[in-house]
């Protein structure tokens, strides 16, 4: 009987096999479980990418232009003591996981071969580390090469029966190293008979078993620590290794556990699906590090998480799963300020004996809280509390902080002894991080960047490692970098790939003279319009310009002209990707971190005066009553006649002697803008306030000289009104053209509960009523919140009201129902950002959509995809917020510097009252600071807190009452905190 097998035989063509397969189980999101068989076609043309090798150069695959990718690894790699002929490194997965910061060091770790096996394992274990590794492989000077060992016939290792995946992967790494050594040997021999300098390929692994096997097979290998030890500045480098692993070994004998175990992923997911457990992001209160909250979709109000024990090793920002505690453990939110540094000052990072998860002091603090909760009625009603049972996703990042002086045993700079120290993060919501370092002496008084590696059940604080030092505390460079890092602002210079996308003409680029040039296609020639721009003084990235003129029919033509950035930044090129990553330009006091390269932002796109520029124009016909007759969108070429600052423009408008077209146009604009503004307020737009101050710096050194609150001129609101109008018009146009994918901006109506506290405070303290049923009602009732003789009171209430609101967000039209589009603050049905494409990515996307909506150019595919746009929105929402935060932090720092050594007495207002302190806001400097009871007198005076009336009666020698909204005189000094060496603004009551 003739018989043939259906199976693809692997036995028959042994040796010549170029086919292998990989079988695994895939679980899909919908709960399906599939067996997946992937066939692997093994090849021989994957190059080793060493510049020593000629053979690989011949076989390397070529691209469409018949070029091979240039080889990565140097022909003369650096050597070390043990391998004087130079070496290529092949780290295994764990080496990358524990030492990623090491590999990123500029001065060491060049010529590294990243095996595909390792890369995939890194990807499975940690996505952030994987992205960092990928970034390294793209870094030109580091010479990291990804070798696809699984696809190369010689280095492919089929899994043996009974072998675990890890063992197989280790074997694959060893096999690749072995092959590389043989290959390099041959390559060098083929090059010249006499050459003796043959680099060694060394495997870096910490796995003992793997090391033993490698030695048995004569494969050069080393542990990461041993290798680093042989390098220069080994001390610093060794500190940068992740502490996650050695920690385990050192403390394996200890069994004392501080935290309860986390649930398994499947148990958590089942619980969340069943509605028994809840998932949300863990946030820690900035006033009380022991109080966290998790907002979960199931409830309106956030769940409280009290104490470290219930926090169960979650760090602010982590995605956690929580379980609600029984009702007898419910509690009112804290009215007390609890700061970690004051409670746990004396913790010893080295010794953990007798350590409890809740230290005695912490416990006492909590007890007092509970007592308070029981005695309260309306305001402090007990709220549901919960405890963290598991962590879905760690959002650990790099944290900036400083070394706690008290935790350092020997401060001698010469001592190379390794010791455990605490790093106190700048972010008060993050717990202290234990760090093992050999350079404690040097790191004292420095801004230090560190990461968290692990937080085990038997450790009270998370374990981390040192990444690098940013410089001296309080030095401008270090502090600026620190806040950029804290707010995750990408501040590195633009890479070459991005700069390659700029027009080749550079600064000489001009609007083409010939109207036949493709650049003119579809563009209107608006060069004859009398256009001008009005911006803050010193502004170089001019996004917008305006014009207005009277039409024969008595109406006005008003135009807003926006820099045509989308002409220069095409979708999906490197520059576009970089811009979408950065999301926004970040403005610091002394520095601007651009979203787009300088050439575009400050020159080619910027609507500078006297030169022709491409623009995207929105032109309306409006009646003298500021009603819009029609609107029109077009790409255009304009020539701005003048670039004014707000002040200059104001002077010009006010100067009756000026009667030229330009001034007349501005006067028209001003007249119309006032009408527009009134209409907006009539519709219920809010006039909100945030404390805005401007730091004046010395032009040379950019040292702060003075702090001023910003002055608002009519011209500010002139520009603002027309920008709002343009944004609204464009939003409507984009939405009608792309009902699913238009990128819009919304501002959700705040839930009523947000205003509960403020409206209660106003009622109790001032007998005022805050109505919050609509934005109109709110706007009206905010107007009534005035106090005779105290003009600032209204502003204060507005500042506090602003904090009760939701933050506005970008979104993709298809993800929300039309009524949800509403912008609460502006009282507009629909809104987007269109007017600042140089500094905001959202505007750039809106430009592209509008260009497609008016049939100027086809829409890029990425703007058709709802999923992609949602990703973009998510990112720019975060970037936007971070940029604001970074800007504020920068101002805060400079205000602090400006006040250095001064002693000023100013007016302040009480914004918040705790049982052991209160928050005072000083409008003059826009600073908000805490005054604790113990700052008032030593010893800390007794005080009685009346939570219902927001009064704190301080007894003893001080003997005064502090109540909410009270105007107080405060003395502002600065002070260096002893434990930290950090300068802080200090307020005291006068």
């Amino acid at each position, binding site marked *: *009987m003739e*018989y043939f*097998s*259906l*199976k693809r035989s692997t036995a028959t063509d042994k040796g010549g096999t170029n086919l292998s*397969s990989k*079988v*695994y*189980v*895939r*679980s899909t999101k919908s*709960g*399906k*479980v599939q*067996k*997946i*068989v992937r066939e692997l076609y093994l090849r021989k043309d994957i190059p080793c990418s060493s510049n020593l090798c000629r053979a690989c150069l011949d076989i390397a695959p070529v691209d469409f232009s018949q070029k091979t990718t240039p080889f990565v690894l140097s022909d003369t790699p650096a050597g070390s003591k043990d391998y004087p002929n130079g070496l290529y490194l092949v780290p295994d997965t764990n080496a990358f996981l524990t030492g990623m910061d090491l590999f990123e060091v500029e001065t060491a770790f060049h010529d590294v071969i990243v095996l595909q096996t390792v890369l995939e394992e890194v990807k499975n274990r940690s996505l952030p580390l994987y992205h960092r590794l990928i970034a390294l492989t793209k870094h030109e000077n580091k010479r990291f090469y990804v070798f696809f060992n699984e696809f190369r016939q010689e280095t492919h290792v089929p*899994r043996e*029966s009974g072998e675990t*995946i890890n063992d197989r992967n280790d074997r694959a790494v060893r096999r690749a190293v072995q092959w590389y050594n043989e290959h390099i040997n041959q390559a060098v021999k083929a090059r010249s008979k006499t050459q003796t300098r043959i680099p060694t390929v060394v495997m870096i692994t910490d796995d003992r078993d793997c090391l033993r096997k490698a030695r048995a097979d004569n494969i050069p290998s080393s542990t990461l620590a041993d290798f680093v030890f042989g390098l220069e500045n080994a001390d610093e480098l060794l500190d940068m290794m992740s502490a996650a692993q050695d920690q385990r070994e050192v403390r394996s004998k200890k069994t004392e556990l501080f935290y309860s175990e986390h649930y*398994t*992923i*499947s*148990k958590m*997911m*089942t619980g969340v*699906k069943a509605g028994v457990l809840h998932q949300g992001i863990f946030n820690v209160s900035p006033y009380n590090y022991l109080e966290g909250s998790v907002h979960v979709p199931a409830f309106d109000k956030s769940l409280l998480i009290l104490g470290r024990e219930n926090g169960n090793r979650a760090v602010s920002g982590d995605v956690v799963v929580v379980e609600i505690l029984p009702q007898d453990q419910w509690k009112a939110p804290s009215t007390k300020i609890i700061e970690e540094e004051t409670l746990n000052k004396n913790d010893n990072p080295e010794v953990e004996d007798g350590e409890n998860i809740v230290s005695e002091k912490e416990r006492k603090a909590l007890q007092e809280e509970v007592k308070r909760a029981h005695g309260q009625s309306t305001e402090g009603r007990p709220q549901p509390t919960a405890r963290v049972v598991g962590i879905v996703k760690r959002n650990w990042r790099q944290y900036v902080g400083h070394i706690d002086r008290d935790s350092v045993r020997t401060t001698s700079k010469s001592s190379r002894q390794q010791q455990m120290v605490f790093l106190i993060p700048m972010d008060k919501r993050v717990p202290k991080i234990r760090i093992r370092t050999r350079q404690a002496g040097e790191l004292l008084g420095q801004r230090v960047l560190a990461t968290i590696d692990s937080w085990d059940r038997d450790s009270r604080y998370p374990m981390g490692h040192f990444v690098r030092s940013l410089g001296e505390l309080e030095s401008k460079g270090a502090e600026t970098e620190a806040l950029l890092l804290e707010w995750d602002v990408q501040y590195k210079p633009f890479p070459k790939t991005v700069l390659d996308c700029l027009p080749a003409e550079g600064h000489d680029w001009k609007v083409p003279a010939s109207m036949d040039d493709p650049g003119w296609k579809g563009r209107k020639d608006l060069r004859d319009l009398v256009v001008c721009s009005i911006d803050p003084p010193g502004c170089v990235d001019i996004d917008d310009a305006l014009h207005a003129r009277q039409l024969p029919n008595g109406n006005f033509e008003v135009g807003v002209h926006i820099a045509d950035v989308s002409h220069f930044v095409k979708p999906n090129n490197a520059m576009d990707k970089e811009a979408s990553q950065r999301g926004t330009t970040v403005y610091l006091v002394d520095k601007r971190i651009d979203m787009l390269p300088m050439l575009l932002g400050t020159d080619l796109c910027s609507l500078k005066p006297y030169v022709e520029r491409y623009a995207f124009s929105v032109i309306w016909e409006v009646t003298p009553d500021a009603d819009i007759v029609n609107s029109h969108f077009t790409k255009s070429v304009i020539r701005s006649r003048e670039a004014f600052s707000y002040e200059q423009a104001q002077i010009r408008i006010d100067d009756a002697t000026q009667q030229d077209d330009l001034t007349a146009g501005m006067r028209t604009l001003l007249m119309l803008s006032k009408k527009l503004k009134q209409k907006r307020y009539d519709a219920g737009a809010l006039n909100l306030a945030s404390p805005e101050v401007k730091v004046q710096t010395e032009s040379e050194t950019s040292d702060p000289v003075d702090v001023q609150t910003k002055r608002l001129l009519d011209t500010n609101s002139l520009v603002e009104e027309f920008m709002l109008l343009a944004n609204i018009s464009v939003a409507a146009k984009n939405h009608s053209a792309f009902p699913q994918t238009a990128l819009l901006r919304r501002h959700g109506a705040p839930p009523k509960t947000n205003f509960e506290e403020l409206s209660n405070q106003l009622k109790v303290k001032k007998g005022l009523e805050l109505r919050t049923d609509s934005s109109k009602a709110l706007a009206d009732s905010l107007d009534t919140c005035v106090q005779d003789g105290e003009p600032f009171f209204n502003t204060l209430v507005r500042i506090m009201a602003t904090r009760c609101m939701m933050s506005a967000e970008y979104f993709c039209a298809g993800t929300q129902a039309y009524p949800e589009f509403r912008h609460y603050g502006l009282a507009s049905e629909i809104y987007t950002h269109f007017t600042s494409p140089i500094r905001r990515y959202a505007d750039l996307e809106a430009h592209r959509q509008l260009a497609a909506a008016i049939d100027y150019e086809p829409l890029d595919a990425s703007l058709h995809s709802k999923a992609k746009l949602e990703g973009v929105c998510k990112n720019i929402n975060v970037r936007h917020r971070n940029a604001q935060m970074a800007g504020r932090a920068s101002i805060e720092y400079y205000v602090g510097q400006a006040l250095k050594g001064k002693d000023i007495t100013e007016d302040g207002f009480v914004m918040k009252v705790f049982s052991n302190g209160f928050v005072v806001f000083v409008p003059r400097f826009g600073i908000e600071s805490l005054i604790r009871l113990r700052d008032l007198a030593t010893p800390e005076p007794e005080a009685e807190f009346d939570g219902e009336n927001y009064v704190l009666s301080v007894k003893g020698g001080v003997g005064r009452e502090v109540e909410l909204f009270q105007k107080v005189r405060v003395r502002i000094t600065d002070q260096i905190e002893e434990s930290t060496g950090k300068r802080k603004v200090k307020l005291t009551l006068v």
Partner: protein
Amino acid sequence: MAPNQPQQVTLSPAELSFLRSTLVQSPPIRFDHTKGPKDFRSMRAEYDVLPGANGSARIALEDGTEALVGVKAEVEKSQRRPSPDARGNTLSVAAGDAEMRDTDAENHGKGKGQNSWIETSVEIPGFRDDDPLPVFLASMLTESLLASGELKDRLYINSRFHWKLYIDILLLSPPLSYPLALLSMTTHLALLTSRLPALKSEKDEDPLFDDDWDAAVFLYPKNEGKSLFGAAEDKPPVIVLAMAVGPNIIFDPCMEELAVADAVLAVACANATSSSTRARIVSIRTIDPPSHLTPPGVPNSMNSATGGTVPASSADALTQRELLATSGVWTPPRGGMKRALISQVVKIVVEEGGVAEEVISALQAIELG
């Protein structure tokens, strides 16, 4: 019966009569004279032929019939049933009850399986999927798999999830002989080598599986260290065809032999895990043999051409044929089977070293070899 019976036998009444007379001899001489009554036709078998399936097997018989079976398993959410003991649970102390459940992990899934968790489809070239033959074959195969109740219990993951097993049976050749036994054996081999991803989650959590296929567990686990009690491991049932002709019982009849069968039995058997015998019967069904449709021979006495008289009525014809039953002229059998014969079949199947044990261990050997 419906027209789509397995291919009609094209033997003349005389040939049928001859065939039958050899088979009723003692010992019978089979169509393939080298084989005894209990001998099976030789076959080639292999398993794991379909890389993407959870289990698969292919068997080719010497006459050219060939079957391919693929087993696919999918996780499915169980329908919540208001079970009578659920009410009992709420009454008992919750904690104690939970403990109880932990201890009977041994009996994991016992009696919790449902018939709908196994879906079998049979495809035969030239037949529509709603033709009687494939439908009938599929239901018989499903019936045998469900009858023992063990397979469906193996599919239990937890109270909220179970595996759903799709058994796709494909006959690659035309159905030369009645293909039930072949399909059943192929299915048996496929199930025997089927593996399910290893479960990582516990109890009633949403199931989470190990992504390493090598860690997948066999649907029918192998006792490697030979269990202490000597209890044979559980295996899927297999159907054997037995045919009665006269006093003789013949196993695994070929197409021609079926054409003269008095009766055909499909016996589904599985190895016994506890009883003294090595195998047990899971289900028995009679199958309408094709012999019923064979044309009867016309005896000389009824043939006018040979001087006989054609019977006047059909009733008359029947009476005459009845009388001639032993004369050697071919008359299609009337069907029916003596009790004694059935018990004999059962005995031959389940006895120590009987057909069931032989077949099951032979299929097991394929996997081991």
